[in-house]
């Protein structure tokens, strides 16, 4: 029986990347019933909300979605469709695995880290004011509830996947109350997982250690803003946003996405690397219980890269569809 998955084809190069995923899934004989839902720039241009309520309702009903990059319109009053989806679906755990890929140049040999970013709180509550003519004020919300569920998600992931260490990342030396709350909750949750080594790092020190002692790290968990920044840093260590997958988990709902933008200037050029969306789709396969399919697709992707078939961002000349076709050929043997 086919898995039902909501599909957002996205803006800019999004539809081209989705087509690449469809090509690979077909070759992998993954049976997915794609249920297309609307969001992004096309909705705004049609006079609708950037993420219509019907889209939210459908993803909640189906419980799984794959999302290609979308464009946030520039201008006052515009909100990010990505953040809107995370907030309205309460997708509290943003999970970003970063791992060295064969054929993708990186000085970080052996890189293999999973970052858990709290997705719904912190400064991303988007509560801001001009308090006076000269002073802007943003409200940073950190709750014990929000901190506990993301820390627990990180430790549960570590336990389930045989990871040895979980590090809590914060800035509690300065934000003693807000980040202090996160840190206290992290330490409390850690006591429930005695088999997993854990400690905490201040976020600036963590950034330095990531690029000097990356092999020391296994699973990192942190509040929203630090997670946003550190996960992109880690994506760069892996080889760039073009190869970095992402997943967002809530209670009974999960949304998988490439973490890069919609690259509108490359729209229709069949040029952009589909690896990030494809690896995000393989995280979705695992979520759906299709472990063999995940292994097969990732194996075919790695073989393709090893053979030197690469898109422009990795120094190759393969097109988006050509790269997908090469992976599909590997899968067909």
């Amino acid at each position, binding site marked *: 029986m086919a898995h039902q998955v909501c599909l957002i084809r996205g803006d800019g190069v999004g539809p081209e990347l989705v087509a690449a995923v469809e090509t690979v899934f077909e070759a992998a004989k993954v049976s997915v019933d794609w249920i297309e839902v609307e969001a992004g720039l096309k909705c705004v241009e049609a006079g609708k909300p950037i993420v219509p*309520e019907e889209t939210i309702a459908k993803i909640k009903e189906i419980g799984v979605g794959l999302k290609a990059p979308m464009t946030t319109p520039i201008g006052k009053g515009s909100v990010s469709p990505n*953040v809107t989806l995370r*907030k*309205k679906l*309460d997708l509290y755990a943003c999970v970003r695995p970063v791992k060295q890929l064969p054929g993708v140049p990186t000085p970080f040999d052996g890189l293999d880290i999973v970052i858990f970013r709290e997705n719904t709180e912190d400064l991303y509550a988007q*509560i801001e004011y001009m308090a006076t003519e000269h002073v802007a004020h943003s409200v940073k919300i950190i*709750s014990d509830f929000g901190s506990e569920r993301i820390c627990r998600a990180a430790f549960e992931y570590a336990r389930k996947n045989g990871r040895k260490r979980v590090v809590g990342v914060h800035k509690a030396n300065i934000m003693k109350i807000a980040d202090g709350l996160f840190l206290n909750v992290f330490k409390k949750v850690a006591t429930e997982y005695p088999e997993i080594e854990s400690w905490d790092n201040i976020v600036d020190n963590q950034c330095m250690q990531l690029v000097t002692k990356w092999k020391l790290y296994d699973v990192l968990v942190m509040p929203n803003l630090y997670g946003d920044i550190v996960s992109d840093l880690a994506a760069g260590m892996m080889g760039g946003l073009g190869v970095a997958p992402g997943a967002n988990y809530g209670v009974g709902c999960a949304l998988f996405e490439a973490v890069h933008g919609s690259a509108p200037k490359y729209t229709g050029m069949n040029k952009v690397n589909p690896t990030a969306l494809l690896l995000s789709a393989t995280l979705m396969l695992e979520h759906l219980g299709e472990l063999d399919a995940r292994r097969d697709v990732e194996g075919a992707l790695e073989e393709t890269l090893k053979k030197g078939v690469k898109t422009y961002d990795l120094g190759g000349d393969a097109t988006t569809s050509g790269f997908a076709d090469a992976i599909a050929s590997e899968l067909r043997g």
Partner: protein
Amino acid sequence: MMNLHGVDIYIWTPQTPDLPKEFGKFKLILISNRGPRVYPPPAPDMDLLDWPRARFLSDTVVTDEEVDALVHHLTGLGWRWTKCQKLFIKDGVNQFSQPY
């Protein structure tokens, strides 16, 4: 010139509060929790913190005394508030963000 048009009142309560929809020049525009709007419906199906934010706005400029009176009224109704933030409009542009 920053013109005072309303106030965000953060209330300590575990549920979305049933607040007066109007008071004086003010109308209850929305209530949010952790960012997303939870009133008026539809509210996202999410866990709530015990810190909803109620936004009261007026179409016309209001005074500090009128804001005080609104806050005093809510206190009198038994609502425990923890923080208030005045809302200004300058040259027709809101000097405050909108919820998700």
